């Protein structure tokens, strides 16, 4: 099944589609090999979920794609008509933020820091506030604009960070889902929003996920990360049909 992942090229997948090639990515930390020869092709308009046990290297793979960790191998971004994008825009939704809950940071502040030249503590124009509102509208979160980050629920914070990652519209969107702290309804809403945005903006999405039933429902493709590499990859039906995956996750659905 690994072969299938490698050979499925863009052209087979309806031509004129942009895509991302992740080829032969390996990550070492000291003498410890964390990822070994990871290959993955991602097409735009597709939601690819990465699953695997804790510590399998899922977040590491995202950090390698982000360029935060040194790695061997190559990542290329192809636009329509196979043109290589030299400086791709990467949208990233982190697992968590490193602020303490009492910090006086509003939702609008983190948008202002990322999108505008004027310092966050300066007065904001009506137009820039409108842009933040438009961004939040995409994830059904306009009402949160003046809230403090510390009072948001896990699901609300995740949606806000998703909205942030979508301006500007990225070549590839990386979502690192928190292990805990989000209730089931919040998580379901998040998946629904991601799935609808994928179609609306023709996004390439990689989602590190811990919720298999939701992955089965919303992902277009699933990559199973095990033993430091992607062991199998395909449609949810294919991957969840594999004996090894079923055994590891003790699946009964």
């Amino acid at each position, binding site marked *: 099944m690994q072969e299938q992942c490698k050979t499925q090229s863009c052209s087979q997948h309806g031509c004129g589609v942009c895509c991302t090639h992740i080829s032969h990515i390996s990550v070492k930390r000291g003498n410890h090999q964390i990822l070994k020869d990871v290959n993955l092709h991602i097409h735009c308009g597709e939601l690819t979920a990465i699953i695997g046990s804790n510590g399998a290297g899922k977040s590491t793979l995202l950090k390698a794609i982000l360029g935060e960790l040194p790695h061997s191998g190559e990542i290329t971004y192809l636009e329509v008509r196979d043109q290589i994008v030299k400086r791709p825009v990467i*949208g*990233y939704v982190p697992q968590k933020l490193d602020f303490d809950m009492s910090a006086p*940071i*509003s939702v609008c502040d983190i948008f202002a820091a*990322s999108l505008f030249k004027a*310092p966050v*503590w*300066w007065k904001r124009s009506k137009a820039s506030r409108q842009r933040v509102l438009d961004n939040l509208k995409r994830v059904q979160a306009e009402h949160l604009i003046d809230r403090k980050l510390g009072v948001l629920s896990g699901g609300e914070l995740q949606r806000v*960070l998703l909205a942030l990652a979508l301006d500007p519209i990225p070549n590839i969107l990386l979502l690192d889902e928190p292990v805990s702290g989000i209730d089931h309804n919040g998580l379901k809403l998040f998946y629904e929003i991601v799935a609808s945005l994928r179609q609306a903006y023709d996004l390439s999405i990689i989602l590190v996920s811990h919720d298999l039933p939701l992955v089965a429902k919303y992902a277009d493709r699933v990559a199973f990360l095990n033993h430091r590499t992607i062991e199998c990859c395909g449609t949810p039906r294919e991957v969840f049909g594999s004996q090894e995956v079923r055994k590891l996750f003790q699946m009964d659905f």
Partner: protein
Amino acid sequence: MYRKRVHVQEVSTCKRRVYMSGWYNLIEWLIPFEWAKYNFMKNALLGVLLVTPMFGLVGTMVVNNKMAFFSDALGHSALTGIALGVILGIGNPIWSMLGFSIFLTLAIIKVKGANTASIDTIIGVFSSTAVALGIVILSFRGGFAKYASYLIGDLLSITPEDLVLVGITFFIVILIWIIAYNKIFLVSLNISLAKSRGINVHLWEYAFALMIAFIVTLSIKWVGTLIISSMLVLPAAAARNIASNTKQYTVLSVTIALFSGISGLILSYFLGSAAGATIVLILGLIFALTYFTKIILSGAK
């Protein structure tokens, strides 16, 4: 040649005197009170007007980044800087202090990057070793009393020359706060997020830490090593009790710092107390005030 240089020097002091006398006259006109008649008070007032807003601004980020302990370590290690200056025979200890605090900052960030121990432990190890080294050198043959003034500082010892240096730092800090605040802000939220936005994380991490090192070291002489980090942390800590976004946080922190600075200076004149400590005491009171305001407000909701 020598004569010429003396001449140039005279001209420049002369100019400075003209410049300072403008400030002195302005103060006398604005504040017709007895305490404002002395030149040392006028210098101290200008010092407070430059230093406290800087502390208020930078403090907001120090508290957000949980770097209070780091600034404390920098303050304490100034003793080591002075000691090194004595050994190397450097006339003005400010240079050896700056040199050592820059070294300490770089060392702490480097070791932190290696991820071998928690940041608290790393700072603790560096700070206490540095302080011990400084005290051993300075107290060698029982001469520590000479340097005791650095422990509590003397705000009234500010000279016009010091003010020039503080003025330059003030403008650099304001400039960084305008052009780089957003970047430093994002780095403090999440490093990977900042990286995905194309921000050079390492550059700004270093730049911000070095900026703290500069401000702390420059102010040691007037504030004293014992309470310098309170000057940095308290205005922001008080402001965050009642602020709900970054703009309010910044404005409140600077206002609180300025208010405490000016009122502390005046109060210390009448009490004959150390100005730095008096300012910190007022800051502490304001913190208590905002803390209870927060509790009352959240109780009312």
